Every structure is written in structure tokens, then in C-alpha cells.
């Protein structure tokens, strides 16, 4: 009998005023009892609309039915038949815009907590001691190169390996995971979880070569010379955008990339790691997306007394996930909405002392339906701060496009690829932020999946 409670089982969380002082994970995860109870809320609809909302087509009602039965191993097998990173997706996917937005239970009341269940199943599997050994698919003798070990690259590599391809991932950083390790903070996605998912892929036979920058250490053309038959580019959107306002080169102005990389990848918050980070007291974040929320919550955990989100539109227009905003607020992140940065102020030593903001009002909706911010004349004021973190987006890195002949790119610098991930060059496929510009982990994973399918089709057509 289905559980007809209108609300999801709430997610156990660390207390906001405790968690804003540590880097431990905020959401603690369901217990087995909670998971079974939540799974019983699923009506197991025949037409399973939820699946259509998932970029990697997880067989949602099937795995949830297994959770309801308490057969978590079977649930895990069902999820991983289409999704190679369930512990990651269960944590960082915007389910409210995807699977859960299609859930019938969401019409009256809350949808089934699909993301939370996915996370539970993945964590259950990870914690299990007597895991069956990972099966290593037999090699079909074809070598494929994947550039970048972020969500797109990992998914593409995992899927190709399952089909029998010999896959090597080339990663520029010393650690695999891309944005999952340098961008998303520990308290939202523990790095041990990412490492475990990557170990899984390695156990399946995926080779990861770190410290190789395609476009510098090696070019795409050389990959073909070295015997790779196809290349998937999943190099992400790593280039930070700046505001181009006065004072942006003052000391204490960071790109969100630098700020987060120092803390997440280089572990500057830990005494036993060498990378330094300054102790700031008043930090102003510029931007209203997920990255801005991450930067704000990191700044708070590093010990800042005041952390401000400055954003030129209103609360309803914040591009961040609602859940991220709801997590940030009780952690005492202060929202300075309808405020647009005009300049950054410094002292005689070049250190940041404040950010000049201009108040905004909301005008007519723009082409995307978001209400356009209109400056209020004469409303400029200065918010005192000793650091500014710019989190207004990123664009694709030019290193690959500038060193690869005949690779067409878009006006925004992304690699041009069709819906199958095919680029303008034969044998070269691309997906994720490298193509679309900054988007979400799950969309990149979807693109990695598509890329793997297209590469398989390409190699098979070549054989004929």
C-alpha cells in the first residue's frame, strides 16, 4: 500500500549554526527506514514521467520499487545501468527541475524525494564492505581518448568502457573529477565520494592520466597519431569571467574559481596542506548562482564574520537552486539583493576595503522572462568588505580550440557540436560545458552519455 503522506521525508541536516563553522557534509542522508518509507510514496506510474525528466534516463520507478522492498543492492544495479555517478547525482542534481518536477505526487503535495533516494542507494553501496568485485568488460581493441575528468568525461568514459572500448582520460589537474573536486565544496559533495566513484571507473579499466593539458602537453592531432580512434572533449568551462569594473585587480578580489579551487582542490582550509588562503572578515560575493552560494558558504566556514551575496536582481530571480539559497540563509549569509556592483574600493596598499553598489529596481521581463534590473539613479553606496569574490560565470577555455585545426567554435567560445556531440572534425566529439558554456553536472553527464553512444556508432560505421 502506497504511503500517501503529502510531504517528503525531511532530509536530516547539520544545524545551520554548527555547520557554518565546519566543512563536513550538510545533508546527512536518509536512514534505511526513512528511505523505505519515502520509496513507498512512489505510485510506480505506468508512463513514468519522471524518467523523461532525467538527462541520463535513470529507471526511476524500478529502482524505487526495489528500495521499497528493502532490496538496496538491486536498486543500485538498476541505477548504475544508466548512471555511472549516482552518489554525485543524488547530491548535486537539480531534481526539482528534472525528475521530481514531473512526479505525479508533486501535483498535490511534494514529489517523491527521488534525489534523496538515489543518494541513499549509492551511499549504502559505498559503505558496504562485501561489495561484489567490479566486472571488467572485455576489450574490443579500440582506443578512445577522453579529455577532462569532470562529469561529462567520466560519464562518457564509463559508458564507453562498458561497451568494451579502451578508454584513457586526460586530466589537466593532479586530481581527477573536474568541477566535482575543484568547484563544488566538500560540505555539499564530499571529495571521498567523488574519489570512490572514480575508483569504480578505474576498477572497470578506465585509465586516467593526470597532469596532461590537451593543447599544451599534447594536441588532439597527436592523440590520433598515438592511435586513438576517436576523441571526446569534455574540458568544461574553466575560464572565469570578470566584471570589468574599476578596482577589480585590487588585492582581495578573487574569481570564484580561484577562491573555490584553493579551498576545495588544494584544501587551503586545512592546516596540513600548504596552499594559503587569507582570513577575511567581511566578504562580498558578486553573483546569485550556485557557485555564488558555494563561495559564500565557503567564506563563512573560513571564519568570515559577514558574508554578503550581492546580486542585481531580486530573490525570485536568483539563478541558484532554491535548496542552495535555503541552505545559505540560515548559515547567516546576508543577501544584498537588487544591488549592482559599480566599483571596488581599495586602500593605499591596494587592499580591498569596500564594494560600491548601485541599487536596482525590477523592470519589464527580458526575453527569458526574468525581470530586468533597472538602476536607481543616485543610489550608490559602499558596502565595507575586505574581499570580493566574483561569481558571475565562466566560459570555455581556449586551449583546445586554439590548438586543434578545423574545430569550429561558437561565438561564445564553445566548441560547436550537434545533438549527437559530433564536432566539425571527424572522430572528434564534445559535450558538457565545453560546448554549452556553464551549465549543470547532470546535463554534462547527459552529454557524456550521448557522446559515448555517438562514438560507438562512429567506430562501428568505420569498421564496415
Amino acid at each position: 500500500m502506497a504511503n500517501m503522506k503529502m510531504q517528503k521525508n525531511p532530509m536530516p541536516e547539520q544545524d545551520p549554526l554548527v555547520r557554518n563553522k565546519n566543512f563536513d557534509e550538510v545533508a546527512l542522508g536518509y536512514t534505511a527506514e526513512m528511505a523505505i518509507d519515502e520509496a513507498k510514496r512512489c505510485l510506480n506510474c505506468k508512463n513514468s514521467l519522471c524518467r523523461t525528466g532525467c538527462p541520463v534516463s535513470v529507471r526511476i520507478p524500478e529502482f524505487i520499487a526495489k528500495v521499497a522492498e528493502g532490496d538496496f543492492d538491486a536498486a543500485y544495479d538498476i541505477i548504475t545501468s544508466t548512471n555511472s555517478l549516482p552518489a554525485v547525482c543524488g547530491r548535486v542534481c537539480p531534481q526539482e527541475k528534472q525528475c521530481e518536477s514531473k512526479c505525479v505526487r508533486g501535483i498535490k503535495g511534494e514529489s517523491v524525494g527521488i534525489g534523496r533516494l538515489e543518494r541513499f542507494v549509492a551511499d549504502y553501496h559505498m559503505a558496504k564492505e562485501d561489495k561484489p568485485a567490479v566486472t571488467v568488460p572485455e576489450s574490443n581493441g579500440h582506443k578512445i581518448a577522453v579529455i577532462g575528468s569532470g562529469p561529462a568525461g567520466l560519464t562518457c568514459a564509463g559508458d564507453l568502457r562498458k561497451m568494451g572500448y579502451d578508454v584513457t582520460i586526460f586530466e589537466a589537474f593532479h586530481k581527477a573529477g573536474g568541477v566535482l573536486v575543484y568547484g563544488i565544496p566538500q560540505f555539499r559533495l564530499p571529495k571521498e565520494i567523488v574519489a570512490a566513484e572514480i575508483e569504480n571507473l578505474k576498477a572497470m579499466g578506465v585509465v586516467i592520466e593526470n597532469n596532461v593539458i590537451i593543447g599544451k602537453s599534447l594536441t588532439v592531432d597527436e592523440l590520433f597519431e598515438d592511435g586513438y580512434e576517436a576523441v571526446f572533449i569534455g574540458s568544461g568551462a574553466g575560464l572565469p569571467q570578470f566584471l570589468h569594473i574599476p578596482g577589480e585587480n585590487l588585492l582581495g578580489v578573487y574569481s570564484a574559481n580561484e577562491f573555490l579551487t584553493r579551498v576545495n582542490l588544494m584544501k587551503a582550509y586545512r592546516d596540513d596542506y600548504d596552499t594559503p588562503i587569507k582570513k577575511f572578515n567581511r566578504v562580498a560575493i558578486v553573483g546569485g548562482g550556485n557557485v555564488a552560494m558555494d563561495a559564500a558558504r565557503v567564506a563563512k566556514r573560513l571564519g568570515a564574520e559577514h558574508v554578503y551575496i550581492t546580486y542585481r536582481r531580486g530573490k525570485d530571480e536568483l539563478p541558484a537552486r532554491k535548496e542552495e539559497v535555503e541552505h545559505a540563509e540560515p548559515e547567516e549569509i546576508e543577501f544584498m539583493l537588487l544591488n549592482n556592483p559599480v566599483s571596488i574600493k581599495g586602500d593605499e596598499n591596494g587592499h580591498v576595503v569596500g564594494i560600491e553598489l548601485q541599487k536596482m529596481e525590477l523592470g519589464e521581463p527580458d526575453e527569458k522572462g526574468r525581470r530586468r534590473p533597472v538602476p536607481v539613479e543616485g543610489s550608490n553606496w559602499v558596502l565595507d568588505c575586505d574581499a570580493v569574490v566574483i561569481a558571475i560565470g565562466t566560459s570555455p577555455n581556449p586551449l583546445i580550440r586554439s590548438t586543434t585545426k578545423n574545430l569550429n567554435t561558437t561565438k561564445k567560445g564553445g566548441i560547436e557540436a550537434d545533438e549527437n556531440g559530433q564536432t566539425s572534425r571527424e572522430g572528434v566529439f564534445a559535450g558538457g560545458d565545453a560546448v554549452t558554456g556553464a551549465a549543470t553536472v547532470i546535463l554534462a553527464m547527459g552529454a557524456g552519455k550521448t557522446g559515448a553512444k555517438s562514438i560507438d556508432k562512429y567506430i562501428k560505421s568505420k569498421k564496415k
Partner: protein
Amino acid sequence: MYKVVTKRFLNEAKTICLFEIEAPRVARHAQAGQFVIFRLDEQGERVPVSVAGWDREKGTVTVMVQAAGRTTKMLHTVEEGDYISDFVGPLGKATEMDGLQKVCVVGGGVGCAIAYPIAKEMHKLGIDVTFIAGFRSADIVILKEELKAASDKLIICTDDGSYGEKGFTTQYLQQEIDANIAEGKLQFDRVIAIGPDIMMKFLADVTRPYGIKTIISLDPIMVDGTGMCGGCRVIVGGETKFACVDGPDFDAHEVDFDSLLKRAAFYKDEQDEAAQHICKMTGGKRNG
């Protein structure tokens, strides 16, 4: 992991040390003027260092590193046969040499190690190279023989006159420019200046009145070295550039030295403190 094949101190004072590292991928593409980023171990920071040489057949890359902060001091304790965890590159753009006829390469201190492969490459291409190498004193002079072999004329000077000529590199650069004029010789069509930021600033002042294009190599604070963090921002000709991908070479007459000097000192307190906390028992060796 990357093996240290050779380790050799380059001067009496043991302030600068040569490391030949096994890194075939870097060796395959390295060019003069580029840099690498290394990391000692799991807890280590990413530190950029210029490429001083390479052996494409052997698959090795040479770097010459001065012990300055915590990480470089710890690197100096790494021995032949040891491994460091990361060594990535080559990064940045190679130094431009096309069409040059007569170049003055100026190195200050460890800057000579960075300038050396550039001079060597230019000399090989048949460009007339004058090398001015400046050091504080005799005990820290490096690469005497190598610099001689890589140049048509070599001037080594020390601040205190304890080796070679007495005085600063600016003085000898001025002297060479003046001599070219006085003797009706071809003037330098390029000056390459590599050393402490303040020295490069003054060298830029020397060449400015003559309109001699002067290139400096910058090594600001950076994290990834691929354009991702934006920490290495430098202002050149009023525009913000990233030293890691747009450089490391920039036109000295366009660089905003003021902001460069300030940025370089940003983590000074943290660095000084970190350098004091190197274990005296192990000399900074971790995990072993």
C-alpha cells in the same frame, strides 16, 4: 609520480638547485620561455617554475629552483632517485624570436636560470646575443660556463664586485646600448629581462628612451596555470591579462609594475609563517 634523475646545486651558497625530472610529455613540447607547475606531494601547493632545459630523447626536463618559500625549501631536500607527485606543462607561450638579429638578455639572480634557455636558443638560431648576468655576490653566481656558451658576449656583475664586474645590470645594459651608439654598431632590436620585479622595472626604464622593445617574463601567484583561476592577473597596456596563458612574456613598457609588485606580496605573511614551520627533524620531508 615524476622521478628526479639529477640534482645539483648550482652555486657555492647552495641557494639555487638544478633538478632534471623525468617527464616525457613535457619534454616532448617544451620550448624556451615556457614554464611548468610542480607539486611535491599530496599536501603540497602548486608552484610554477620556468623550464631551464629539456632532452626530448631522454624525456627529461630541467628546472633550476631557488629556495625561497616553504615549498621550494622542501624541494631542495628531494634527492636523486626520489619522486615528486606532480609536474605538468609546458605552460604559457614560448618566447618570440622570429626575425631578431641582435638581442641583449639580462638575468638577475635566479632569473639567469630562466633567461639561459632563451639565450641558448637564440644563440643557436644565429642571433647575436649579449648576456648580462647580475648577482648579489660571488657565492650565488650560477651557470658561468653555460652562459658563456650561450652568448656572443657575456658580462657577469655582482653588487659588491666579489665576482666579475662591480655594479648592477641596469648600469651594464646602459653601457652596452651607449657603446652600440658610440661605435656605430647595430643597436639591440630586443632586450629580454628576467629577474626580480623591481630589477625588471628599472631595466624597462633604461630601454624606454631608445624605444628598444623589452620583454620580461613574469611569475605572479597562480594556482592552475591554464587560465582557470585568474589569480595571475597582470595589467598590461591598461588591459587585464593572465600571465599563465597570455604570458609569461610581456612588453615591459606596457606592464603596470605597481600592481605587479603589490600582488606578489599578497600572501607574504602566510608564506613567511609557513616557511618557519618546516620540520627541523626532517628538513621538510613529509611522509618519510
